[in-house]
């Protein structure tokens, strides 16, 4: 937790190009009703929501910063810290759960060396759990950079980790 806070403090002063933020706000015609949609687009573009980004959005929409933070901390999709270059999501939906998703998650945490919700120090991987990927026939399932995989073994996982740049 303290580590996370430290990373967040450091991240607040990071220099960022905010042109894309302005473009996205323009696309929604600076309408504050579209705040969640704007933040989604920015999250997908920048892979995280930094303080400078949120401040800029709120200035442009003329709303208090707390409203953006309320949303950014309420919904699962948003991240207040930089995400890894590769995203790994392990499905913990009910169908996967009864087919051994927890054992798969154990293998994944061991292979990457981080717990769900964390990013590796070299910002290579971010590991998350999700509640249903909607491909229950593959269960226990996971997604690595958009590619769906079924019940990977420890060996295959180790190869994937070693092979990632």
């Amino acid at each position, binding site marked *: 937790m303290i580590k996370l806070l430290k990373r967040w403090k450091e991240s607040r002063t990071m220099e960022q190009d905010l042109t894309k933020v302005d473009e996205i706000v323009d696309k929604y015609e600076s*309408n*504050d*009703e*579209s*705040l*969640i*949609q704007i*933040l*989604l687009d920015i999250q997908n573009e920048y892979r995280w929501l930094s303080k400078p980004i949120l401040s800029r959005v709120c200035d442009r929409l003329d709303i208090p910063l707390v*409203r953006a933070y*309320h*949303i950014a901390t*309420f*919904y*699962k*999709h*948003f991240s207040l810290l930089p995400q890894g270059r590769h995203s790994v999501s392990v499905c*913990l*939906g*009910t*169908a996967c*759960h*009864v*087919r*051994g998703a927890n*054992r798969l998650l*154990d*293998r994944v945490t*061991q292979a990457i060396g981080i717990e769900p919700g964390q990013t590796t120090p070299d910002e290579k991987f971010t590991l998350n759990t*999700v*509640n*249903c*990927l*909607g*491909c*229950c*026939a*593959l*269960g226990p*399932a996971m997604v690595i950079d958009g590619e*769906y995989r*079924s019940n990977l073994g*420890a060996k295959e996982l180790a190869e994937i980790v070693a092979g990632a740049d």
Partner: protein
Amino acid sequence: MAKLKSLLDLEELRKSIVAARDPSKLCITICSGTGCHAYASEKVAEAFSSEIEQRGLSGKIDLRRTGCHGFCERGPIVVIFPDEICYLSVKPEDVSEIVSETLIHKKIVERLLYVGDDGKPISNENDIPFYKSQIRIVFGDNRLIDPQSIEDYLALGGYAALAKALFEMTPEEVIEVIKKSNLRGRGGGGFPAGIKWETTRNAPGDAKYVIVNADEGDPGAYMDRSLLEGNPHSVLEGLIIGAYAIGANQGYVYVRQEYPLAVDNVSVAIDQMRELGLLGEKILGTGFDFDIIVHRGAGAFVSGESSALMTAIEGRVGEPRPKYVRTAVSGIHGRPSNLNNVETWANVPLIIKHGADWFRGVGTEGSKGTKIFSLVGKVKHTGLVEVPMGMPLREIIYDIGGGIRDNKKFKAVQTGGPSGGVIPESLLNLPVDFDELSKAGSMMGSGGMIVMDEDTCVVDVARYFLNFLADESCGKCIPCREGIQQMLVVLNRICEGNGTDDDLEILTDLGDMMRDCSLCALGQTAPNPVLSTIQYFREEYEEHIKNHRCPAGVCKELINYYIDPEKCQACMICMRNCPVGAIEGGKNIVHVIMQEKCTKCGTCLEVCPPRFSAVSKLSGVEIPEVAAGGIKVR
């Protein structure tokens, strides 16, 4: 395409699309739903495309990427029209053979067919047992349509129901038909859609809204996703008809951003509708204006609740509010707003087209029509199934689902997601409809049906759902926020072998309190998974509490892995695979698990060759001592 300005324009366009199509022409359809996509269906589609080109067959054979067919277990699914030859689990390397054998020489590739229990291969998709007892009125067109082609939808009679409503019926008549059909909401509660529509229509206010709820958050349920991905126009047509009946000029589709394909397909569909004048001002030359906005949800289960969802559409955090006044009267911006789920909307065009009596012809006394279920878990044929209301659970699980995987024993089926309950074997003959499921302590929910076998621990399942809900509770009301937490404390204690004799009573009391006092349905129904498992599987809870034993061998703190020295052949496989080096032994020396090092990941059990089966799980018994220094293999 030019804008359609009248009923005649629509019918002319349909005629021209149908006339340009030859029903006897060869057409390869490839299921491209999310399940098949995960099985690399796109590679199969590309392989077909290049194979057709290489053989100079372009123009002679159509290739169509369709929505989900439902039989996800055996994807990617390829169906070749007009004979409807169905190939399962197709890989890119099978493509060349399919083209030369089936498409050119009209011969069937037997090895890719479904093989029945009697060993006979089945070539037509509709004859496969998985599909045979289904009635696919809502989901059936998925396999015929390219979701990104409005022409495909029009060719099958799309938007004829809208035309009928606009030109032949008054809004009141539309509502009457929906009321008479007794269409009940497919999203969970089963509230009659017609009555909800009427409330919104009669509520005071000029601006009204209609909304598609595609925030399908139940883990293990994906029918709304597949319907919206596979046949978006059917949902949108229902929405426009609803808007006309209610008197709304603005609609929303609230869809989770976790469903990117659904977002894409629905956005493409809306663009096509605007282009054709099926959205916008003066639709089909009438005085009716209507448009739709797509709102992506950012990942919160509670935002699927109607008042929370509407708050999110306003651009604020999606938390529920007390509903002294229903959202049908005061919803988005305090205006009357009618919310229905994806499947409910998709039923509307069918009812308008065929009439209320047709719809009432299927189903039970209180629940009419069909329901799509996502049949998943330990069942042989995982997939989406659409069955008439009232079909017994047993038929769904055994006749359609093919029974339990790996010849295990059936234990229970969980319906209704985190708000639902667990149904035991003794109730397998229960006819599935809204009322029967509620009576059994569960609910229809959005239609998740998770089958569990003897290897599933129901206490662990209850804990799983509570964990999920603890994470998803918005925390606004105390009974839900604290109630779930406290129930979880008790369940964790039971799963860890520290349960007390009072625990089941505490759980029941907490559950009753949450049912009565929580603000929204999330908290009110949160105890269901716990209370229904206590009701039907009390002995299993008691085994955990009194004997510290998990009969299914799931709860980690209550099990130990053990290698039987009589059976171990010292093959070294488990030793090499153990991720924490907890197995000692060596060549010709029987392997032993060091219990203090073991993390109970189960790898040794998985890798031990079946011909030895030396590794087993023990629960509630002492681990037999193994002589120090190692035993030689006999």
